[in-house]
Structures are given as C-alpha cells and as structure tokens.
C-alpha cells in the first residue's frame, strides 16, 4: 500500500491544476490572441467574478442546500450600492460597507426562512430570487446608475503586473485565502462544516445547527454582494440586467466552480481552492471556445455538458467515500 507519491498529487485540486494547464497550452497553440495581453487581462476580470460567485454558492452547498437567488441577490446589492453612491452621495467606503451589510441581510432572510420552515433552500431561494429581483426592478424602475464616482469605477479598469492582471482577481484570490483560513483554522469554520456534514450529530455535540446554516446563507449573501460590487466596478455602472434576467447568468458558473472543485452536493465538505480552480477552468473553456469561434450556442452546450460531467463526478465521489467502509 505504500507509495512515494506526495498526498497533494492525489487530490482533486492537482487534477484540476493539470487540466487548467492543458487547456491553457491547448488554447495558446490553437487560437490567435489567447495569450495576448488584452485577452489575459479580460480573462482576469471575468474569472475574478466567477470565483467570487462560485465561493458564494459553495458556502451554501456546504449545508447540503443551494442558493438560486445568488444572481438576483448580487445584483440587488449592487443596485443598492448604486443608489447609495449616486443618489445619496454616500462616500464610497461607507457605501461598500452598507452594500455588504445589505447582501448579508438578504442572505440572512434566505437562511432564516430555510431554517424556520424546514423547507429545502432550493425552494426558498427560488422564491427569494423572484422577490429580490422583482423588488429591485420595482424600486429602480429598471433604470441603471451610470454616474458612479470615478474612484470606484477606476478600480475595475485598473491594470496591474505589466497590465496583465486586474486587481479584481487579486481581491478574489485574497478572499479564497480568508475563507480557507476560516474553514481550516477557526472554531466557527469547523462548526459550519460539521453542521453541514451531519446536522443531527452536530446538534447533539453542542453545535447550534440552525445558527450555522443561517451563517452560511449570510456569508453567501455577503460574497454575492462582493461579486455585485466587483461587476459594477468593472462595467462602470450598476445595471439591473447585468447578470441577466433574475440573475440567471450567474447560476451556471456558480454551480460549476464548486462542483468541479470537489465540493460535495450533499454537504459537509468544502474545497476553497478547488472552487477557485473550477472557476478558472470554466472561464478558460468559455473563453477558448469563443476564440475558436464555435458560436454562442455551442459554448452553452459545452458548459451544460461540463456541469453534467461534474455532477457525475460528485456522485462518484460520494460513492467512493461510502465504499471505503466495505470491509466490516
């Protein structure tokens, strides 16, 4: 049984890293302009947001649930931010704090309703998705905020590292490290995971499972709001349709990243860096396919295929975790 392969090599993350490298090489040699400074910069802006929404979904999947309201929530928070900065003239730093609080609050609603009713978060967030988006459209009259402070929008178009990388990506990577620290090195992070893995056992071990689930939803709302801020800053305006109708455009990447990354859909396991790599992979494939010029519909087709494949992988993972106990 003893092999000299380091543990890291056997992990899902390592496989993902290899895939990412393979795709980078593939697209570099088969397409024009993949490795151009312009394209890499554009990629870094996109992937930054995909990572963030992947993380936002991941922390709810941790509970064995889902957050379908992710896109609607993120956009609502962004629109709220637009209103704060443009209509109310609140300073940027205070506005950002308010946006994050607002996002967490919307997440709290998701969590509170889920926990108190015992209804699966799939249903709850399907409802709140509609509610948040509807309210937002009503209050904003579907008008965008286009005159945001320049300091704010400049951040989204800033270029670092010889103009290759957007600061947005650094923010996302930093967030990954913070979450990794949370789950690995704090009491509260461990409790979140334990509650997700086996709520009954966690409750009887003195963990307040309901509270943990609400925290997860709040964290999800918080991260979705961050993604909303990032997108607003990138576009230079807060637009109601910036994540598609009802925020649908965020759903597919939000699912793909954590599931490809190795987060179990049944809950109780998170892989922060897996989610990050998952988001990178999805963005790469997306971008590469566009550059190969296969056409919009094929891109969607492939992303759908990848999701199905990732879910199959999830089932396999669960199967092998249970298979381990075969010798009794």
């Amino acid at each position, binding site marked *: 049984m003893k092999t000299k392969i380091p543990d890291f090599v056997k992990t899902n993350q390592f496989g993902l890293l290899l895939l990412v490298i393979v795709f980078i090489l593939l697209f570099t040699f088969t397409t024009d302009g993949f490795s151009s400074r312009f394209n890499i910069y554009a990629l870094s802006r996109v992937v930054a947001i995909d990572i963030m929404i992947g993380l936002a979904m991941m922390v709810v999947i941790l509970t064995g649930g889902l957050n379908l309201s992710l896109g609607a929530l993120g956009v609502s928070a962004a629109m709220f931010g637009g209103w704060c900065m443009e209509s109310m003239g609140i300073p940027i730093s205070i506005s950002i704090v308010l946006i994050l609080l607002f996002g967490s609050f919307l997440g709290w609603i998701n969590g509170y309703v889920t926990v108190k009713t015992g209804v699966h978060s799939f249903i709850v967030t399907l409802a709140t998705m509609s509610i948040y988006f509807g309210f937002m459209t009503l209050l904003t009259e579907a008008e965008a905020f286009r005159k945001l402070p320049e300091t704010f929008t400049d951040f989204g178009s800033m270029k670092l590292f010889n103009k290759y990388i957007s600061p947005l990506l650094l923010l996302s990577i930093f967030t990954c490290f913070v979450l990794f620290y949370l789950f690995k090195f704090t*009491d509260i992070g461990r409790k979140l995971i*334990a509650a997700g893995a086996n709520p009954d*056992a966690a409750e009887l071990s*003195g*963990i*307040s499972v309901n509270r943990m689930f609400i925290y997860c939803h709040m964290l999800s709302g918080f991260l979705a709001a961050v993604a909303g801020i990032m997108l607003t800053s990138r576009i230079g305006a807060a637009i109601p349709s910036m994540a598609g109708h009802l925020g649908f455009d965020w759903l597919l990447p939000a699912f793909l990243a954590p599931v490809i990354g190795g987060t179990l859909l049944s809950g109780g396991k998170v892989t922060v860096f897996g989610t990050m790599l998952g988001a990178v992979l999805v963005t790469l494939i997306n971008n590469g396919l566009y550059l190969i010029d296969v056409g919009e519909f094929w891109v969607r087709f492939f992303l759908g295929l990848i999701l199905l494949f990732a879910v199959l992988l999830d089932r396999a993972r669960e199967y092998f975790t249970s298979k*381990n106990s075969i010798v*009794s």
Partner: protein
Amino acid sequence: MSKNILELTNVTKNFPGVKALDDANFKLKKGSIHALLGENGAGKSTMIKIITGVYKQDFGALIIDDNKQSFSSPNEANKSGISVVHQERNLIRRFSVGENLMLNNLPKNNFGLINYDEVAKQSKKWLDIMELDIHPNTIVSELTVAKMQLCEIAKALSLESKILLLDEPTSSLSPQDTKNLFSLLKRLVKEQDVSIVFVSHKLEEVFEICDEVTVLRDGKNACVSENINNLDRQKLVKLMIGRDEQIIKSKENKNMNKENLLDLININTDLGHKEISLNLKKGEILGLYGLVGAGRTELIKCLLGLDRIISGKLVLNNEEIKIHSPKEALEKYKIGYISEDRKKEGLILMHDVLTNAGITVWSKLKKILSFLNNGIIYNKVDPYIKKLEVKTPSYNQLVSNLSGGNQQKISVAKWLAAGTDILFIDEPTVGIDIKTKAYLHELIINLSKNGTSIILITSDMPEMIGLADRIITMKDFKVVGETINNHNYDDMSSSIMASIHE
C-alpha cells in the same frame, strides 16, 4: 446424519489490504438452526454476503444441495432459495404489509393492473403460517418494531426460501418478542423444512435455539459446525476472542446517601411523557430500563431541549433550570449525551477521527478571533483516544473506515474530552464485540467512581444489572418502578420484568 443443504469450502476473500476470509468453511445441515459467530471484523458479514451473492469469493466453493453454485447477484441467490433478513429494516414503510410481502411478484388482473384482493389473499397465507395476527392491508409504519421484524421473515418465506439468514434479528426486540420469535423459528424449521443461519452477539440466545455453531476469528474458522451441547459460554467466548471473557464487574453501591444532583419533578412533555419524576445522585449510575418504545431516549432528548417540556420542573444542584438546546446543556450545565445511533447521531462518518473526537471541545479550545488548529485539538483529545485504545492508523483516518467498536469508542471519547458532570449514555454496546464491550463497561464504572453522574439506557439486561446503582423502569412514557440494584441477576431481572408487566 442429515445432509448439508449449504456448504462453503475453503473460501478466501481478499479486500485491498485485508484478508476478510481466509480458507474458511461453513456447513449448514438441512433442518437445523446454525449459529454464525465472531467479533466485529471476524468475517461474518463477508461470509453472509458471499452466501447471498453480494460478493464473489476469490477461492473456494459455494455448494447448495450438492451442486456447486456461483451467484452473480443477490437476485440469483434469492431464486436458489436463499433469503437474508438484515438488521436494518428492508420494508417500505408507507406500503401495506401485503404489498411488501408480494412486492417481487404482485398478482395482476386481466388488465395488467394489480389485483389487491389477490395480494391480500396470497400474503395472508404467509402471515397465517407465521401465526401472525396482522391484516395484510395494515400499513407497515403502523406496526411495532417486533411485528416488522416478523413481516420481514414472512417476506423471506414468501420467496419460497429454504435457507434463511438472520442477522442480529433480536437487537431491537423485547425479551417477550424474542421468545415469540424463537418459538416461531423452531416451528418453521420443523414444519416448513427451512434451515436457518443465525447471527447474534447475544450468546444466551445462541444456546437457547441453535443446534450447531461455527465461529470465525480474523477470517479463519475457530470451529466448524460444533454441536452446541459440547460447548458452554466460556468455551464459546474463548473461541470468539481467543482468550477468556472478563465478566462484567459490578459496582458497589457506595453513593446512595449523597444528595441529588439532578431532579426531574412531574415532567410532562410534548412527546407524551406523563408525570416523570426521578432523581440522579452525584457519582451514581442510574439505569433506565424499558422495552423499545417506552420513551427512554425520547425523555433524554426532551431534557436536552430537542423536544419541549410542557410542565414540571428540572432542578440541577437545587436550582431550577431550563435547557433549550444540547449546546446549552453542554456549555452551561455540563451535560452530555452519547447517542444510541452512532452512525446517524453520534459521529460524522465522513469526517476524520480528530474532528469527531474534538467536536465537543472546539468552543472551549478556541483562541482569539476564533482561531483553532489541529495541533490544539490534538493536544486536548489525544489522551482520551489513547486511553480508549482506539485502533486507527492515524487521526486523519475517516471514521467511516473504522470498525464498529472503534467508532463507538470515538463517540465516547468526545464526551470524555468534554469533561461533563452528567452523562446520558444510550445503549453503549449495541453491535459491539465482546472485548470492546467489557472495556466500555469498565470505563463507565470508572467514570462514575470519579464523580461523573450517569443515566444509563440499555436494553441489555445483564449490562444493566452489572452497571447500574439504581434501576428505574419505564413503560408507555411513564415511570413504573424503581429498584435499588443488588447485582443479583435472577432477583433483579424478575423484579424489573414484574414492574413492566404489572
């Protein structure tokens, strides 16, 4: 000599890193009840799974009725007349008894729809053979645990099975139900020409109904088809564990005059407990005995705040308290609960040993900004895991990979680490091998000697009489009796049963 209906000769089965069966033999005589014994991990389950077609042996032969057989699925084994009744219920709870019995072969009418009259009629036949007074249209979920068990056997019979494998059939039955089951099994063997393989941890039962015994130890035969009359309990235990059994050491009643630590006064609960009054003294082991469904575990869960106490008083150290959650019980009142269901409620199977053993102490151990790493937890729980002699390759091992006995040790270890004043211990040795069982008994006694007050729930009468200082009997969510334990088995068991059946 009657002939063998089922035979395994020189069977070997390898799993990655483990030899589950090593050149093992098994012979089942036609029309006999044969005990298959061994500690957890000895290879019983593997043997059963080979007989029932779940696994295929690497070497050796499976012979049924003198014909060499090779099953590639449980279905094929079924067709050859082999049925297994597992510990876990395999009935569909929302279906009727008749539907469950006939599930594999539902009678249809001319339109291809299910003929429910026929379902009832055909299933009634099997219920009658079992002398079971259940209407075929009864929904399974309305039956008692014992009746469900009997329905499973009826279902196995309805498949025209000639060989019946019963895996721990009595683990959730009351003594009375067990007795009924045994007389039924004896009758089946006589009248229905059935041969039975009986797997159990309870040796008393083996002596009561089995004709022959096969013991496995570490995948090998410790004995093959030994006549039960040539064995006694000591010999059998020695075959199973390879050394003599340690008898449950009784604890002397030294603490009877101490003051009450926890008082329940006229407690009524949402779940239907009526006027429960009892007290727990410091350093005492208070036994809660009762049949399945007497409301013992439910009472504990109400005390932990998982279900509501409607009226009555809960007094700890002469102070009235209210507990709203297990978290509060643990952190504020230092009360812990070792669940009877270690897989569902006791452990997080998909997490590692360190996580599971430390879960109760995270809050206590955390540093500034909620910081907590593995090293801090390791230092705290390592002594307890060592003390309990948990066998695991490392603390990173997933708990699901450990044997049942070691899993139970972990679910005990986490409460030792928590250092509670009061511990509710629920069925601590169900499905645990004899060695671990004796170890846990000693541990419970030592805990109470060191001042921990314990409420012990167990349906294992010898265990109860060995460990408890006082025994409270419950029935139908009420307290029906209280006895000071004198550790004399005959005395105590009859007085306990009397209080239940009054």
